[in-house]
Protein backbone atom coordinates (compact mmCIF):
# COMPACT_ATOMS: atom_id res chain seq x y z
CA UNK A 1 0.00 0.00 0.00
CA UNK A 2 2.71 2.37 0.95
CA UNK A 3 4.67 2.03 -2.23
CA UNK A 4 1.52 2.14 -4.11
CA UNK A 5 0.64 5.61 -3.06
CA UNK A 6 3.79 6.97 -4.59
CA UNK A 7 2.99 5.11 -7.75
CA UNK A 8 -0.43 6.70 -7.95
CA UNK A 9 1.00 10.12 -7.31
CA UNK A 10 3.40 9.52 -10.12
CA UNK A 11 0.67 8.72 -12.61
CA UNK A 12 -1.25 11.72 -11.45
CA UNK A 13 1.74 13.83 -12.24
CA UNK A 14 2.16 12.19 -15.60
CA UNK A 15 -1.45 12.65 -16.54
CA UNK A 16 -1.39 16.27 -15.64
CA UNK A 17 1.10 17.44 -18.21
CA UNK A 18 -0.45 20.41 -19.88
CA UNK A 19 -0.03 21.08 -23.53
CA UNK A 20 -0.08 24.89 -23.42
CA UNK A 21 2.97 26.37 -25.00
CA UNK A 22 3.43 29.29 -22.64
CA UNK A 23 3.91 27.12 -19.61
CA UNK A 24 5.89 24.41 -21.33
CA UNK A 25 9.30 26.03 -20.82
CA UNK A 26 9.01 26.66 -17.14
CA UNK A 27 7.43 23.27 -16.68
CA UNK A 28 10.17 21.61 -18.61
CA UNK A 29 12.70 23.26 -16.36
CA UNK A 30 10.78 22.20 -13.31
CA UNK A 31 10.57 18.64 -14.57
CA UNK A 32 14.31 18.50 -15.21
CA UNK A 33 14.87 19.92 -11.81
CA UNK A 34 12.75 17.32 -10.10
CA UNK A 35 14.30 14.54 -12.16
CA UNK A 36 17.82 15.50 -11.11
CA UNK A 37 16.69 15.81 -7.51
CA UNK A 38 15.27 12.30 -7.75
CA UNK A 39 18.49 10.83 -9.12
CA UNK A 40 20.52 12.68 -6.51
CA UNK A 41 18.34 11.07 -3.87
CA UNK A 42 18.94 7.56 -5.24
CA UNK A 43 22.67 8.00 -5.80
CA UNK A 44 23.01 9.67 -2.40
CA UNK A 45 21.32 6.70 -0.78
CA UNK A 46 23.89 4.28 -2.16
CA UNK A 47 26.81 6.61 -1.47
CA UNK A 48 25.83 7.08 2.16
CA UNK A 49 25.29 3.36 2.52
CA UNK A 50 28.72 2.65 1.01
CA UNK A 51 30.47 5.29 3.13
CA UNK A 52 28.83 4.08 6.31
CA UNK A 53 29.70 0.42 5.79
CA UNK A 54 33.27 1.34 4.81
CA UNK A 55 33.63 3.41 7.97
CA UNK A 56 32.22 0.52 9.94
CA UNK A 57 34.68 -1.87 8.32
CA UNK A 58 37.51 0.49 9.23
CA UNK A 59 36.57 1.40 12.82
CA UNK A 60 34.90 -1.91 13.55
CA UNK A 61 31.88 -0.48 15.39
CA UNK A 62 30.09 -3.78 14.91
CA UNK A 63 30.66 -6.89 12.87
CA UNK A 64 30.92 -5.61 9.28
CA UNK A 65 29.33 -8.82 8.04
CA UNK A 66 26.02 -7.56 9.44
CA UNK A 67 26.02 -4.51 7.21
CA UNK A 68 27.53 -5.28 3.81
CA UNK A 69 28.36 -2.39 1.51
CA UNK A 70 26.71 -1.97 -1.90
CA UNK A 71 29.94 -3.08 -3.54
CA UNK A 72 29.89 -6.35 -1.65
CA UNK A 73 26.23 -6.83 -2.57
CA UNK A 74 27.19 -6.24 -6.21
CA UNK A 75 29.94 -8.79 -5.96
CA UNK A 76 27.53 -11.32 -4.47
CA UNK A 77 25.06 -10.60 -7.24
CA UNK A 78 27.77 -11.20 -9.80
CA UNK A 79 28.42 -14.57 -8.22
CA UNK A 80 24.74 -15.44 -8.50
CA UNK A 81 24.74 -14.37 -12.12
CA UNK A 82 27.76 -16.53 -12.88
CA UNK A 83 26.42 -19.73 -11.42
CA UNK A 84 23.01 -19.13 -13.03
CA UNK A 85 20.98 -19.05 -9.84
CA UNK A 86 20.04 -15.41 -10.24
CA UNK A 87 18.19 -15.93 -13.50
CA UNK A 88 16.47 -19.09 -12.29
CA UNK A 89 15.46 -17.44 -9.00
CA UNK A 90 14.09 -14.34 -10.66
CA UNK A 91 12.20 -16.29 -13.31
CA UNK A 92 10.71 -18.60 -10.69
CA UNK A 93 9.47 -15.60 -8.71
CA UNK A 94 8.23 -13.73 -11.76
CA UNK A 95 6.28 -16.72 -13.05
CA UNK A 96 4.64 -17.18 -9.65
CA UNK A 97 3.71 -13.58 -9.10
CA UNK A 98 2.48 -13.13 -12.67
CA UNK A 99 0.29 -16.21 -12.74
CA UNK A 100 -1.13 -15.43 -9.30
CA UNK A 101 -1.72 -11.81 -10.16
CA UNK A 102 -3.39 -12.53 -13.48
CA UNK A 103 -5.56 -15.25 -12.00
CA UNK A 104 -6.57 -13.06 -9.07
CA UNK A 105 -7.36 -10.13 -11.35
CA UNK A 106 -9.54 -12.25 -13.64
CA UNK A 107 -11.48 -13.72 -10.75
CA UNK A 108 -11.76 -10.32 -9.05
CA UNK A 109 -13.07 -8.53 -12.14
CA UNK A 110 -15.45 -11.34 -12.96
CA UNK A 111 -16.90 -11.55 -9.45
CA UNK A 112 -16.98 -7.76 -9.19
CA UNK A 113 -19.08 -7.53 -12.34
CA UNK A 114 -21.47 -10.22 -11.17
CA UNK A 115 -21.83 -8.72 -7.72
CA UNK A 116 -22.39 -5.23 -9.05
CA UNK A 117 -25.09 -6.52 -11.39
CA UNK A 118 -26.97 -8.79 -9.05
CA UNK A 119 -28.21 -7.46 -5.76
CA UNK A 120 -28.92 -11.02 -4.62
CA UNK A 121 -25.41 -12.32 -5.21
CA UNK A 122 -23.97 -9.20 -3.63
CA UNK A 123 -26.01 -9.84 -0.50
CA UNK A 124 -24.93 -13.45 -0.48
CA UNK A 125 -21.20 -12.96 -1.08
CA UNK A 126 -20.45 -9.64 0.56
CA UNK A 127 -20.81 -10.64 4.23
CA UNK A 128 -18.40 -13.53 3.73
CA UNK A 129 -15.88 -11.29 2.04
CA UNK A 130 -16.26 -8.70 4.77
CA UNK A 131 -15.42 -11.37 7.30
CA UNK A 132 -12.50 -12.89 5.40
CA UNK A 133 -11.13 -9.60 4.06
CA UNK A 134 -9.44 -8.32 7.23
CA UNK A 135 -7.59 -11.60 7.85
CA UNK A 136 -4.00 -11.17 6.65
CA UNK A 137 -3.56 -13.36 3.60
CA UNK A 138 -0.35 -14.79 5.06
CA UNK A 139 -2.38 -16.48 7.76
CA UNK A 140 -3.89 -18.70 5.07
CA UNK A 141 -0.59 -19.93 3.71
CA UNK A 142 -0.16 -22.94 6.05
CA UNK A 143 -3.74 -23.95 5.26
CA UNK A 144 -3.15 -23.67 1.54
CA UNK A 145 0.06 -25.66 1.95
CA UNK A 146 -1.78 -28.49 3.60
CA UNK A 147 -4.55 -28.37 1.03
CA UNK A 148 -2.46 -28.02 -2.09
CA UNK A 149 0.89 -29.32 -0.86
CA UNK A 150 4.21 -27.46 -0.87
CA UNK A 151 3.79 -26.85 -4.54
CA UNK A 152 3.39 -24.04 -7.01
CA UNK A 153 -0.37 -24.34 -6.60
CA UNK A 154 -0.39 -23.26 -2.98
CA UNK A 155 1.88 -20.28 -3.70
CA UNK A 156 -0.05 -19.14 -6.74
CA UNK A 157 -3.32 -19.55 -4.87
CA UNK A 158 -2.05 -17.34 -2.07
CA UNK A 159 -0.90 -14.65 -4.49
CA UNK A 160 -4.16 -14.85 -6.40
CA UNK A 161 -6.13 -14.56 -3.18
CA UNK A 162 -4.12 -11.50 -2.13
CA UNK A 163 -4.76 -9.92 -5.53
CA UNK A 164 -8.40 -10.67 -5.91
CA UNK A 165 -9.98 -8.75 -3.05
CA UNK A 166 -8.88 -5.19 -3.93
CA UNK A 167 -9.60 -5.81 -7.61
CA UNK A 168 -13.07 -7.02 -6.75
CA UNK A 169 -13.80 -4.05 -4.49
CA UNK A 170 -12.59 -1.48 -6.97
CA UNK A 171 -14.36 -3.11 -9.89
CA UNK A 172 -17.65 -3.08 -8.02
CA UNK A 173 -17.11 0.47 -6.96
CA UNK A 174 -16.36 1.54 -10.52
CA UNK A 175 -19.45 -0.13 -11.89
CA UNK A 176 -21.71 1.30 -9.21
CA UNK A 177 -20.43 4.83 -9.71
CA UNK A 178 -20.95 5.08 -13.44
CA UNK A 179 -22.51 8.43 -14.26
CA UNK A 180 -26.23 7.66 -14.80
CA UNK A 181 -26.57 10.20 -17.60
CA UNK A 182 -24.09 8.16 -19.63
CA UNK A 183 -26.41 5.21 -19.28
CA UNK A 184 -29.41 7.36 -20.13
CA UNK A 185 -27.76 8.77 -23.19
CA UNK A 186 -26.80 5.31 -24.38
CA UNK A 187 -30.41 4.21 -23.88
CA UNK A 188 -31.77 7.13 -25.85
CA UNK A 189 -29.32 6.28 -28.64
CA UNK A 190 -30.92 2.87 -28.88
CA UNK A 191 -28.41 0.72 -27.01
CA UNK A 192 -29.70 -2.53 -25.55
CA UNK A 193 -28.75 -3.82 -22.13
CA UNK A 194 -25.69 -5.73 -23.29
CA UNK A 195 -24.44 -2.78 -25.36
CA UNK A 196 -24.88 -0.43 -22.42
CA UNK A 197 -22.93 -2.79 -20.23
CA UNK A 198 -20.20 -3.46 -22.74
CA UNK A 199 -19.73 -0.02 -24.23
CA UNK A 200 -20.57 2.23 -21.32
CA UNK A 201 -20.43 0.60 -17.90
CA UNK A 202 -17.32 -1.48 -18.44
CA UNK A 203 -15.50 1.32 -20.18
CA UNK A 204 -16.35 3.72 -17.39
CA UNK A 205 -15.29 1.26 -14.69
CA UNK A 206 -12.01 0.24 -16.29
CA UNK A 207 -9.86 2.99 -14.71
CA UNK A 208 -11.09 1.81 -11.33
CA UNK A 209 -10.14 -1.77 -12.13
CA UNK A 210 -6.63 -0.55 -12.77
CA UNK A 211 -6.46 1.23 -9.44
CA UNK A 212 -7.44 -2.04 -7.80
CA UNK A 213 -4.77 -3.85 -9.79
CA UNK A 214 -2.06 -1.47 -8.69
CA UNK A 215 -3.00 -1.80 -5.06
CA UNK A 216 -3.07 -5.56 -5.52
CA UNK A 217 0.35 -5.61 -7.10
CA UNK A 218 2.04 -4.62 -3.84
CA UNK A 219 -0.01 -7.21 -1.95
CA UNK A 220 0.82 -9.86 -4.54
CA UNK A 221 4.52 -9.23 -4.04
CA UNK A 222 4.11 -9.52 -0.29
CA UNK A 223 2.33 -12.83 -0.72
CA UNK A 224 4.99 -14.04 -3.14
CA UNK A 225 7.87 -13.44 -0.75
CA UNK A 226 6.10 -14.94 2.23
CA UNK A 227 5.11 -18.00 0.22
CA UNK A 228 8.64 -18.44 -1.01
CA UNK A 229 10.07 -18.02 2.45
CA UNK A 230 7.82 -20.66 3.92
CA UNK A 231 8.19 -23.48 1.53
CA UNK A 232 10.15 -23.43 -1.66
CA UNK A 233 13.52 -24.30 -3.02
CA UNK A 234 14.04 -21.37 -5.35
CA UNK A 235 13.00 -17.80 -5.82
CA UNK A 236 13.88 -14.48 -4.24
CA UNK A 237 12.10 -15.26 -0.99
CA UNK A 238 13.95 -18.54 -0.76
CA UNK A 239 17.29 -16.74 -1.13
CA UNK A 240 16.45 -14.67 1.95
CA UNK A 241 15.57 -17.62 4.24
CA UNK A 242 18.39 -19.69 2.92
CA UNK A 243 20.88 -16.88 3.49
CA UNK A 244 19.61 -16.47 7.02
CA UNK A 245 20.83 -19.97 7.87
CA UNK A 246 24.37 -19.02 6.76
CA UNK A 247 24.46 -15.42 8.04
CA UNK A 248 24.87 -14.22 4.49
CA UNK A 249 23.50 -10.72 4.83
CA UNK A 250 24.80 -9.63 1.45
CA UNK A 251 22.53 -12.25 -0.17
CA UNK A 252 19.56 -10.92 1.77
CA UNK A 253 20.31 -7.37 0.75
CA UNK A 254 20.59 -8.43 -2.86
CA UNK A 255 17.29 -10.24 -2.74
CA UNK A 256 15.50 -7.30 -1.12
CA UNK A 257 16.81 -4.89 -3.71
CA UNK A 258 15.80 -7.22 -6.53
CA UNK A 259 12.28 -7.47 -5.11
CA UNK A 260 12.09 -3.69 -5.05
CA UNK A 261 13.32 -3.45 -8.62
CA UNK A 262 10.90 -6.11 -9.85
CA UNK A 263 7.96 -4.38 -8.19
CA UNK A 264 8.97 -1.07 -9.69
CA UNK A 265 9.21 -2.65 -13.13
CA UNK A 266 5.80 -4.30 -12.87
CA UNK A 267 4.22 -1.17 -11.55
CA UNK A 268 5.73 0.80 -14.39
CA UNK A 269 4.29 -1.63 -16.91
CA UNK A 270 0.84 -1.18 -15.37
CA UNK A 271 1.21 2.59 -15.53
CA UNK A 272 2.20 2.27 -19.17
CA UNK A 273 -0.95 0.28 -19.87
CA UNK A 274 -3.03 2.94 -18.17
CA UNK A 275 -1.42 5.64 -20.19
CA UNK A 276 -2.28 3.88 -23.41
CA UNK A 277 -5.79 2.79 -22.39
CA UNK A 278 -6.81 6.04 -20.75
CA UNK A 279 -5.47 8.54 -23.22
CA UNK A 280 -8.86 10.20 -22.99
CA UNK A 281 -8.09 11.20 -19.45
CA UNK A 282 -4.76 12.69 -20.34
CA UNK A 283 -6.57 14.91 -22.76
CA UNK A 284 -8.40 16.53 -19.89
CA UNK A 285 -7.10 19.96 -19.18
CA UNK A 286 -7.54 20.34 -15.48
CA UNK A 287 -8.15 17.68 -12.95
CA UNK A 288 -7.49 14.74 -15.29
CA UNK A 289 -8.00 11.91 -12.83
CA UNK A 290 -9.95 11.83 -9.65
CA UNK A 291 -8.86 9.01 -7.50
Amino acid at each position, binding site marked *: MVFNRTAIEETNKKFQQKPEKSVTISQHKKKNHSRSAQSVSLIGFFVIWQVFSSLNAYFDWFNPQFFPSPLIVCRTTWGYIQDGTLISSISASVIRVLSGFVLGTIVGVFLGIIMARSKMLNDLINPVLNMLGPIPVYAFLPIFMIWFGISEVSKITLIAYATFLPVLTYTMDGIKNVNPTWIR*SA*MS*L*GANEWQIFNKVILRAALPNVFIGMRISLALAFGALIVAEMMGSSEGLGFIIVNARNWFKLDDMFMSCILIGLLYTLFNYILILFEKILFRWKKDGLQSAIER
Partner: protein
Amino acid sequence: MAFVEVNSLFKSYDDSGFQGKYVLNDINFKVEENEFFCVIGHSGCGKSTLLNLLAGFIKPDKGEIYVNGKLVKKPSSQQGVVFQDHALFPWYNVIENVAFGPKIAGKKDAYDIALRLIKMVGLEGYEKKFPNSLSGGMAQRVGIARALASNPELLLMDEPLGALDAMTREKMRMEILKIWKQTKKTVVFITHSIAEAVYLADRVIVLKDGKIFLNQKIEMERPRQIHSDQFLKYTKMLEKVLFDSEKLIVE
Protein backbone atom coordinates in the same frame (compact mmCIF):
# COMPACT_ATOMS: atom_id res chain seq x y z
CA MET B 1 -53.57 13.40 -34.04
CA ALA B 2 -50.75 15.73 -33.26
CA PHE B 3 -47.17 14.57 -33.54
CA VAL B 4 -46.65 14.55 -29.80
CA GLU B 5 -49.64 14.18 -27.52
CA VAL B 6 -49.47 14.36 -23.77
CA ASN B 7 -52.71 13.33 -22.12
CA SER B 8 -53.54 14.05 -18.45
CA LEU B 9 -50.08 13.21 -17.21
CA PHE B 10 -49.45 12.75 -13.47
CA LYS B 11 -46.15 12.02 -11.82
CA SER B 12 -45.10 12.04 -8.19
CA TYR B 13 -41.92 10.92 -6.52
CA ASP B 14 -43.73 10.38 -3.27
CA ASP B 15 -44.15 6.68 -2.75
CA SER B 16 -46.82 7.09 -0.11
CA GLY B 17 -49.15 8.14 -2.93
CA PHE B 18 -50.40 11.16 -1.05
CA GLN B 19 -52.63 13.24 -3.31
CA GLY B 20 -51.56 16.75 -4.16
CA LYS B 21 -47.87 15.91 -3.97
CA TYR B 22 -47.57 15.64 -7.72
CA VAL B 23 -44.49 16.96 -9.46
CA LEU B 24 -46.57 16.98 -12.60
CA ASN B 25 -50.28 17.47 -12.12
CA ASP B 26 -52.60 16.84 -15.04
CA ILE B 27 -50.40 17.93 -17.91
CA ASN B 28 -51.97 18.12 -21.36
CA PHE B 29 -50.42 19.53 -24.50
CA LYS B 30 -49.82 18.80 -28.15
CA VAL B 31 -46.77 19.42 -30.26
CA GLU B 32 -47.16 19.66 -34.04
CA GLU B 33 -44.71 18.13 -36.43
CA ASN B 34 -41.61 20.29 -37.09
CA GLU B 35 -42.65 22.57 -34.27
CA PHE B 36 -40.08 24.16 -31.96
CA PHE B 37 -41.72 23.71 -28.59
CA CYS B 38 -40.37 25.32 -25.43
CA VAL B 39 -41.11 24.40 -21.83
CA ILE B 40 -40.20 27.15 -19.39
CA GLY B 41 -40.30 27.26 -15.64
CA HIS B 42 -38.39 27.84 -12.42
CA SER B 43 -36.08 25.13 -11.21
CA GLY B 44 -38.09 22.49 -9.42
CA CYS B 45 -41.25 23.13 -11.42
CA GLY B 46 -41.13 19.67 -12.95
CA LYS B 47 -39.79 20.54 -16.37
CA SER B 48 -36.93 18.06 -16.21
CA THR B 49 -39.34 15.42 -14.98
CA LEU B 50 -41.51 16.16 -17.99
CA LEU B 51 -38.55 15.69 -20.31
CA ASN B 52 -37.54 12.45 -18.62
CA LEU B 53 -41.07 11.21 -19.13
CA LEU B 54 -41.03 12.21 -22.79
CA ALA B 55 -37.69 10.41 -23.21
CA GLY B 56 -39.08 7.33 -21.49
CA PHE B 57 -36.48 7.32 -18.70
CA ILE B 58 -39.21 7.36 -16.07
CA LYS B 59 -42.81 6.20 -16.11
CA PRO B 60 -45.89 8.34 -15.44
CA ASP B 61 -48.25 7.55 -12.56
CA LYS B 62 -51.20 8.28 -14.79
CA GLY B 63 -51.70 9.46 -18.36
CA GLU B 64 -50.02 8.72 -21.66
CA ILE B 65 -47.50 10.21 -24.01
CA TYR B 66 -47.76 9.49 -27.72
CA VAL B 67 -44.99 10.31 -30.15
CA ASN B 68 -46.03 9.94 -33.78
CA GLY B 69 -48.97 7.82 -32.72
CA LYS B 70 -46.90 5.43 -30.62
CA LEU B 71 -47.13 5.19 -26.86
CA VAL B 72 -43.83 6.02 -25.13
CA LYS B 73 -42.90 3.16 -22.81
CA LYS B 74 -39.13 3.15 -22.70
CA PRO B 75 -36.20 5.11 -24.09
CA SER B 76 -35.54 4.54 -27.75
CA SER B 77 -33.60 6.08 -30.58
CA GLN B 78 -36.86 7.70 -31.71
CA GLN B 79 -36.53 10.21 -28.90
CA GLY B 80 -33.09 11.78 -29.11
CA VAL B 81 -31.95 13.56 -25.98
CA VAL B 82 -29.49 16.41 -25.54
CA PHE B 83 -28.43 16.68 -21.91
CA GLN B 84 -27.52 19.79 -19.99
CA ASP B 85 -24.09 18.43 -19.08
CA HIS B 86 -23.76 17.02 -22.63
CA ALA B 87 -23.12 13.48 -21.19
CA LEU B 88 -20.63 12.59 -23.90
CA PHE B 89 -18.73 9.36 -23.37
CA PRO B 90 -15.30 10.58 -22.29
CA TRP B 91 -13.52 7.44 -23.49
CA TYR B 92 -14.68 7.95 -27.07
CA ASN B 93 -13.43 10.75 -29.26
CA VAL B 94 -15.79 13.12 -31.04
CA ILE B 95 -16.47 10.99 -34.07
CA GLU B 96 -16.90 7.79 -32.05
CA ASN B 97 -19.36 9.60 -29.81
CA VAL B 98 -21.43 10.83 -32.74
CA ALA B 99 -21.24 7.46 -34.51
CA PHE B 100 -22.36 5.60 -31.37
CA GLY B 101 -26.07 5.57 -32.27
CA PRO B 102 -25.79 4.55 -35.93
CA LYS B 103 -23.13 1.96 -35.11
CA ILE B 104 -25.38 0.36 -32.53
CA ALA B 105 -28.18 0.33 -35.06
CA GLY B 106 -25.84 -1.67 -37.31
CA LYS B 107 -25.49 1.00 -39.98
CA LYS B 108 -22.48 0.48 -42.20
CA ASP B 109 -22.08 4.15 -42.99
CA ALA B 110 -22.07 5.17 -39.31
CA TYR B 111 -18.88 7.18 -39.69
CA ASP B 112 -20.14 8.95 -42.81
CA ILE B 113 -23.28 9.97 -40.94
CA ALA B 114 -21.14 11.16 -38.07
CA LEU B 115 -18.82 13.14 -40.32
CA ARG B 116 -21.73 14.86 -42.01
CA LEU B 117 -23.24 15.87 -38.66
CA ILE B 118 -19.92 17.02 -37.23
CA LYS B 119 -19.60 19.23 -40.27
CA MET B 120 -23.12 20.54 -39.76
CA VAL B 121 -22.44 21.59 -36.18
CA GLY B 122 -19.24 23.23 -37.33
CA LEU B 123 -16.70 20.98 -35.64
CA GLU B 124 -14.71 19.81 -38.66
CA GLY B 125 -11.14 19.02 -37.65
CA TYR B 126 -12.10 18.04 -34.11
CA GLU B 127 -13.10 14.46 -34.95
CA LYS B 128 -10.24 12.86 -33.06
CA LYS B 129 -10.44 15.04 -29.95
CA PHE B 130 -11.66 13.63 -26.68
CA PRO B 131 -14.58 15.35 -24.90
CA ASN B 132 -12.40 16.41 -21.98
CA SER B 133 -10.41 18.68 -24.22
CA LEU B 134 -13.46 20.46 -25.68
CA SER B 135 -14.99 23.68 -24.39
CA GLY B 136 -18.56 23.64 -23.08
CA GLY B 137 -20.06 25.01 -26.29
CA MET B 138 -18.14 22.60 -28.46
CA ALA B 139 -19.07 19.63 -26.28
CA GLN B 140 -22.72 20.63 -26.52
CA ARG B 141 -22.51 20.77 -30.32
CA VAL B 142 -21.16 17.23 -30.23
CA GLY B 143 -24.05 16.32 -27.93
CA ILE B 144 -26.52 17.68 -30.47
CA ALA B 145 -24.79 15.93 -33.35
CA ARG B 146 -24.81 12.68 -31.39
CA ALA B 147 -28.53 12.96 -30.67
CA LEU B 148 -29.25 13.69 -34.34
CA ALA B 149 -27.11 10.80 -35.58
CA SER B 150 -29.72 8.17 -34.74
CA ASN B 151 -32.18 10.21 -36.78
CA PRO B 152 -34.83 10.57 -34.04
CA GLU B 153 -38.40 11.66 -34.75
CA LEU B 154 -38.33 13.92 -31.75
CA LEU B 155 -35.42 15.85 -30.33
CA LEU B 156 -35.59 16.52 -26.60
CA MET B 157 -33.27 19.17 -25.22
CA ASP B 158 -32.86 19.53 -21.48
CA GLU B 159 -31.49 23.03 -20.86
CA PRO B 160 -28.72 22.38 -23.36
CA LEU B 161 -27.42 25.92 -23.02
CA GLY B 162 -27.77 26.11 -19.26
CA ALA B 163 -24.12 25.41 -18.54
CA LEU B 164 -22.74 27.84 -21.11
CA ASP B 165 -21.60 31.43 -20.71
CA ALA B 166 -23.79 34.23 -22.03
CA MET B 167 -21.83 34.84 -25.22
CA THR B 168 -21.65 31.19 -26.20
CA ARG B 169 -25.35 30.83 -25.37
CA GLU B 170 -26.28 33.49 -27.86
CA LYS B 171 -24.23 31.90 -30.59
CA MET B 172 -25.61 28.46 -29.80
CA ARG B 173 -29.20 29.72 -29.99
CA MET B 174 -28.72 30.72 -33.59
CA GLU B 175 -26.88 27.49 -34.23
CA ILE B 176 -29.74 25.44 -32.83
CA LEU B 177 -32.28 27.29 -34.96
CA LYS B 178 -30.14 26.68 -38.01
CA ILE B 179 -29.86 22.98 -37.24
CA TRP B 180 -33.60 22.77 -36.57
CA LYS B 181 -34.39 24.35 -39.93
CA GLN B 182 -31.96 22.06 -41.72
CA THR B 183 -33.10 18.82 -40.14
CA LYS B 184 -36.83 19.66 -39.82
CA LYS B 185 -37.04 17.85 -36.50
CA THR B 186 -39.73 18.33 -33.92
CA VAL B 187 -38.00 19.84 -30.91
CA VAL B 188 -39.02 20.00 -27.27
CA PHE B 189 -36.69 22.43 -25.58
CA ILE B 190 -36.50 22.94 -21.82
CA THR B 191 -35.19 26.23 -20.52
CA HIS B 192 -35.44 28.65 -17.65
CA SER B 193 -34.58 31.66 -19.76
CA ILE B 194 -37.54 33.73 -20.98
CA ALA B 195 -35.53 35.38 -23.73
CA GLU B 196 -34.36 32.05 -24.97
CA ALA B 197 -37.89 30.71 -25.13
CA VAL B 198 -39.22 33.74 -27.02
CA TYR B 199 -36.26 33.73 -29.36
CA LEU B 200 -36.49 30.06 -30.25
CA ALA B 201 -40.01 28.77 -29.86
CA ASP B 202 -43.05 28.38 -32.07
CA ARG B 203 -44.98 27.62 -28.93
CA VAL B 204 -44.19 28.05 -25.26
CA ILE B 205 -45.73 26.44 -22.23
CA VAL B 206 -45.11 27.83 -18.76
CA LEU B 207 -44.85 25.17 -16.10
CA LYS B 208 -45.36 26.10 -12.49
CA ASP B 209 -45.86 23.84 -9.49
CA GLY B 210 -46.47 20.94 -11.80
CA LYS B 211 -49.21 22.65 -13.80
CA ILE B 212 -49.33 24.41 -17.12
CA PHE B 213 -50.10 28.08 -16.55
CA LEU B 214 -49.80 29.26 -20.10
CA ASN B 215 -49.73 27.69 -23.54
CA GLN B 216 -48.81 30.43 -25.96
CA LYS B 217 -48.00 30.47 -29.65
CA ILE B 218 -45.20 32.88 -30.53
CA GLU B 219 -46.07 34.47 -33.83
CA MET B 220 -43.00 36.30 -34.99
CA GLU B 221 -40.91 36.19 -38.10
CA ARG B 222 -37.45 34.68 -37.81
CA PRO B 223 -34.77 35.89 -37.25
CA ARG B 224 -36.38 37.55 -34.25
CA GLN B 225 -35.21 40.93 -33.07
CA ILE B 226 -34.64 40.88 -29.33
CA HIS B 227 -35.38 44.60 -29.01
CA SER B 228 -38.54 44.70 -31.10
CA ASP B 229 -41.86 45.61 -29.45
CA GLN B 230 -43.35 42.26 -30.25
CA PHE B 231 -40.47 40.43 -28.61
CA LEU B 232 -40.85 42.56 -25.48
CA LYS B 233 -44.59 41.95 -25.45
CA TYR B 234 -44.07 38.20 -25.35
CA THR B 235 -41.28 38.53 -22.80
CA LYS B 236 -43.52 40.56 -20.51
CA MET B 237 -46.36 38.12 -20.91
CA LEU B 238 -44.18 35.21 -19.86
CA GLU B 239 -42.63 37.18 -17.03
CA LYS B 240 -46.05 38.00 -15.69
CA VAL B 241 -47.11 34.37 -15.62
CA LEU B 242 -43.82 33.24 -14.14
CA PHE B 243 -43.55 35.80 -11.38
CA ASP B 244 -47.13 36.80 -10.41
CA SER B 245 -47.65 33.59 -8.61
CA GLU B 246 -50.32 34.35 -6.00
CA LYS B 247 -52.84 35.89 -8.29
CA LEU B 248 -52.78 33.05 -10.79
CA ILE B 249 -52.84 30.31 -8.23
CA VAL B 250 -56.03 31.81 -6.77
CA GLU B 251 -57.59 31.79 -10.18
